[in-house]
């Protein structure tokens, strides 16, 4: 188990290196001269030359890369548009995004797993039908529409929750629901299938034949087996929540990394795009590594590194 963890963590180093190189090279993948792209349309020759020096674009590529890396951590890297340190700008937004992503993952996994287990245990009953109808609707509801609907109900009519902004616990409920509900639908469907499979296994018959109460058989013996594929999907959903949060962040005026990057795209703030994507990608990698570690906790057969 320990060697498995160490191996997984060591694997992060080359992944981080690869991801950072890719993000750094975005500027070079875009057709045209980087300095010209940064300068934008209608810039004079002096402007472009100036930018080359200020951004270090006249230096060799590896020096630029190292400066890029150092710049992120020291906060020296500045937004082209605002001139502010990117680190300073992105940090609070990053916290916002993570808060939102975690809240919605909690909603989607608890609700999804609960519905999936219920649907599997009461297979073909009205409970199953209701849960799966919810899953179908949830999976096919557009996020922005759901967001607006929730605002309409809870903020406009019932006036119990704020329609946007980021002030306290109450303000995160609606955006987290908006992001979490469609994702819970996917988790529910998968949990149902996985649970049905687990419940039909021989070891469940063994547990029942030995007088283990049904509740324990379902929530201990079957669920631990059924969760293995579910955890994978929850990990992948987290990536979707990081990147797909842009719409939700826009609908609720939630200050997050998604919107920050999209704004940067519109204002051609390439440095911000580079850093934003790098941070998002790294978070995704970290989450998936945690999922891998969680696998090993759930399934002893995967512990051999």
């Amino acid at each position, binding site marked *: 188990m320990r060697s498995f963890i160490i191996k997984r963590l060591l694997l992060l180093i080359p992944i981080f290196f690869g991801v950072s190189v890719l993000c750094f090279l975005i500027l070079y993948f875009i057709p045209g001269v980087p300095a010209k792209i940064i300068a934008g349309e209608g810039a004079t020759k002096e402007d472009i030359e100036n930018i080359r020096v200020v951004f270090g674009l006249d230096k060799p590529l590896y020096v630029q890369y190292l400066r890029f890396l150092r710049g992120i951590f020291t906060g020296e890297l500045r937004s082209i548009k605002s001139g502010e340190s990117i680190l300073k700008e992105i940090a609070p937004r990053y916290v916002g995004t993570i808060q939102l992503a975690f809240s919605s993952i909690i909603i989607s996994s608890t609700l999804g797993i609960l519905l999936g287990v219920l649907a599997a245990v009461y297979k073909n009953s009205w409970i199953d039908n209701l849960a799966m109808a919810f899953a179908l609707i949830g999976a096919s509801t557009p996020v922005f529409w759901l967001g607006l609907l929730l605002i309409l109900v809870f903020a406009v009519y019932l006036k119990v929750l704020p329609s946007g902004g980021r002030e306290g616990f109450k303000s995160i409920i609606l955006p987290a629901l908006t992001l979490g509900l469609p994702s819970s639908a996917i988790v529910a469907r998968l949990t149902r299938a996985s649970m049905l499979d687990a419940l039909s296994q021989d070891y469940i*018959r*063994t*547990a*029942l*034949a*030995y*007088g283990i109460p049904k509740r324990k058989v379902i929530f201990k013996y079957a669920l631990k*087996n059924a969760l293995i594929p579910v955890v994978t999907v929850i990990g992948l959903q987290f990536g979707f929540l990081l990147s797909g949060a842009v719409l939700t962040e826009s609908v609720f005026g939630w200050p997050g990394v998604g919107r920050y990057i999209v704004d940067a795209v519109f204002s051609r703030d390439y440095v911000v795009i580079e850093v934003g994507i790098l941070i998002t990608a790294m978070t995704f990698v970290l989450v998936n590594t945690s999922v891998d570690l969680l696998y090993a906790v759930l399934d*002893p*057969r995967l512990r051999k590194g």
Partner: protein
Amino acid sequence: MIKLKLLEIRNLKVYFNTEEGIVKALEDVNLEIDKGEILGLVGETGCGKSVTVLTVLRLLSNASTISGQVLFEGQDLLKLSEKEMLKIRGKEITMIFQEPMTSLNPVFTVGQQLMDVIQLHMNLDKKRALERAIEVLKLVKLPDPDYIVNKYPHELSGGMRQRVMIAMAISCEPKLIIADEPTTALDVTIQAQILGILKHLKEQLGVSILIITHNLGVVAQICDRVAVMYSGYVIETGTVAEIFQHAVHPYTRGLLKAIPPIEEKVERLNVIPGNVPNLITPPSGCRFHPRCERYKDGVCNAQAPSLRQLTETHTYMCYNPYLPEGVVEEVNV
């Protein structure tokens, strides 16, 4: 003195509703097991052996009809509540399954699974339950039980897993162990070891064992008595000697003849002609009559034969049995 019966199954009937029709899995099953006895239940695939034992433990969730009696120490298990059954399963009656590779939960250690059962039925704390788990692993002759107890099923071989299963079966000092084809999935050497362990446990712990098998070699090796099933009926029961030497039912004779002799080379193996009957539309009368070599028209196909008794231990269901010379059949309704 009358020997006390541990388990008595009387006129057990089990039907299932399916889309194709009603499957008459068990029609009239009568069985009894004494204390400290090993009973072999033999028959072809699909004759109802597994349904019988699953009914005893009330583990069938989809049966449409269950009638008859399953008396365990005089108490009808079919009449108990689900809650009362939880105290029978795993405590009084335990089961060993055919597939050791899949019968244990892959995500819990051997020890955790044993301890769950032990704590549930024996009222022991964690430490004592662990001690008991190691003790029963020792009883089934697993080497290094302190080490095995922390292993996951996938780290053990098939034979070792089956021993763990047997350890679980004896962990709460049951009165009856039901072993459903416990050696079918194992190779012959391991099979012999497992049978040896079962026999030893019977002698050491005085537990009764109902062993389901389609291997008559297994029966000859460890059983005291045999019950032969065919298409939802127990058609003949007797001691091992009675069945192997003086079987009276044509089906039992057919089964015995189907074992290829070791001493001589044979060109073709002996078979019973025909197939196992369809359980939705079974043959009328005796369900074996279309395949029977002693079939009498108008008798065998008219009505199912009743249970008849030859000796105190030997019973059968047949109109035209191979009776030993000079024996007049006794009808016991």
